[in-house]
């Protein structure tokens, strides 16, 4: 579904992605984890062509999105829904208008049909009765859910999530995880999630890729990921109190 082939990107002298290659299969939830500044969001931006690789190629299906332009690029992007880190809601539009925006701008649906579709998507993300609220009046979790409803409103095949749980409390984070999982089950979408939240990655990922210093260190299933022998992966797991047996009890760890 999505294929990156030796994608390399420089920001000035600094190599932020170094020959990154992986393939995401249809219907899977592929999670990219890593330390801050490792290149996770940069990788995601290459998939949707907000960045262009200096070397290497990015395919969506058989189409080379890394070289697409104009109408071809727009057609490829129509296959995606993107949940940005801060949700990227337009501040002067209320919740309903934000979710309805792609429908109004890109379809010829009637007002009644748009209303029905928006209501359906907001209900899918467990948000009802906040149609008139402005983005500034919403909590972080609600904003993310509105962003997700907007990402879903055109019924995309692929959804990209950029740090969906960052800045949220653990309970809201798990609710967002459940939503992402539900989207996969109910809508059979392919998802790529960028996060540094390992709990989230282990809960929702069908495969997890660890990116470190612009390179892919490991790609494995969640069960194998926590058993990784790679020192950096182990360090990343331990930093979040996750061991091969599960989650450490912090108190026990402190007394040992």
């Amino acid at each position, binding site marked *: 579904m999505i294929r990156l082939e030796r994608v390399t990107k420089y920001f*000035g*002298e*600094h190599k932020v992605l170094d020959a990154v290659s992986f393939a995401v299969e249809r219907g899977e939830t592929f999670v990219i984890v890593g330390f801050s500044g490792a290149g996770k969001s940069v990788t995601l931006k290459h998939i949707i062509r*907000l*960045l262009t690789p200096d070397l290497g190629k990015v395919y969506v299906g058989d189409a080379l999105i890394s070289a697409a332009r104009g109408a071809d690029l727009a057609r490829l992007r*129509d296959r995606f829904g*993107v949940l940005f880190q801060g949700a990227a809601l337009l501040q002067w539009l209320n919740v309903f208008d934000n979710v309805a*925006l792609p429908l109004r*701008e890109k379809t010829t649906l009637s007002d009644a049909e748009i209303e029905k579709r928006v209501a359906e998507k907001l209900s899918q993300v467990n948000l009802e009765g906040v149609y008139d609220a402005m983005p500034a009046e919403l909590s972080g979790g609600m904003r993310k859910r509105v962003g997700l409803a907007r990402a879903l409103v*055109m019924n995309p095949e692929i959804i990209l999530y950029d740090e969906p749980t960052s800045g949220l409390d653990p309970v809201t984070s798990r609710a967002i995880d459940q939503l992402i999982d539900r989207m996969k089950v109910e809508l059979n979408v392919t998802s790529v999630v960028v996060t540094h939240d390992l709990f989230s990655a282990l809960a929702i990922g069908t495969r997890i890729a660890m990116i470190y210093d612009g390179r892919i260190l490991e790609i494995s299933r969640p069960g194998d990921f926590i058993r990784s022998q790679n020192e950096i992966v182990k360090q990343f797991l331990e930093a979040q109190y996750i061991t091969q047996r599960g989650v450490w009890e912090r108190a026990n760890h402190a007394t040992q």
Partner: protein
Amino acid sequence: MITQEPEFLPPALNLRGRLGRVVLLNCRNAGRALLILWEALLSLRFIFSKRSRGTVLHQLYVTGIKSLGVISVVAMFTGMILALQTGLELRKFGQEVNIGAAVMISMLREMGPFMTALILAASVGSAMAAELGTMTVSEEIAALEVMSIPPVRFLVMPRLAAMMVMTPILTFYACMLGVVGGAVVGLTQLGVSMPAYIDNATRWAANKDLYTGLFKAFVFGIMVTTISCYQGFATSEGAVGVGRATRRSVIISYLAILVVGYIITRLFYE
């Protein structure tokens, strides 16, 4: 694509390199701004479409109605100052009756469009740069691009349309208010009666003065929008970047208004 990749340039080796870079980067930025203008002009065909109508009306309101107060005050006092300064000098020759023509012609040819454009650059233009700049750093512009909603059609076109319509209208309004201000000063301080003032003003001012001034205003409106929107889209580095974009939009707009104002005057009055 409006969303630009981050730019990391190595430090220039010497003064010549630095100067060369400044020239090249400014040429490139001007080119990008002109491309935005071109796309916005092409998008004007959607101005009456159902999806754009509301936004265009809102921008007309923001540009026109919201600027009315400050333009009224500035225009009135500009006319009054013009009348007082020229009237006091003309009085030495017993020619104070000619302040009507002096105020009318100055307002129509130069002061009206110039002053209106400066006010719009400082109020509406800076707001455009700040608004689009904030949208850029909070990834709202990127979100529009990935939804295949062209940011130029969606955001720049309504602003451009509003400025193209409102700058000449506000300029005409400012000119008329300036003339009224001049008349008040003429009547109260220079002893020029209202009929004499109006007769003098309308006798000497030509139609050319009016349409040159309105043409200037039209061009200034387009320039301020293009510069401000480009600066907004080119914003990087968060809140600091938004501040920088806003400041640059005002400074570049002011300079462009001065230079282009002079060029248009040369073209029409050589």
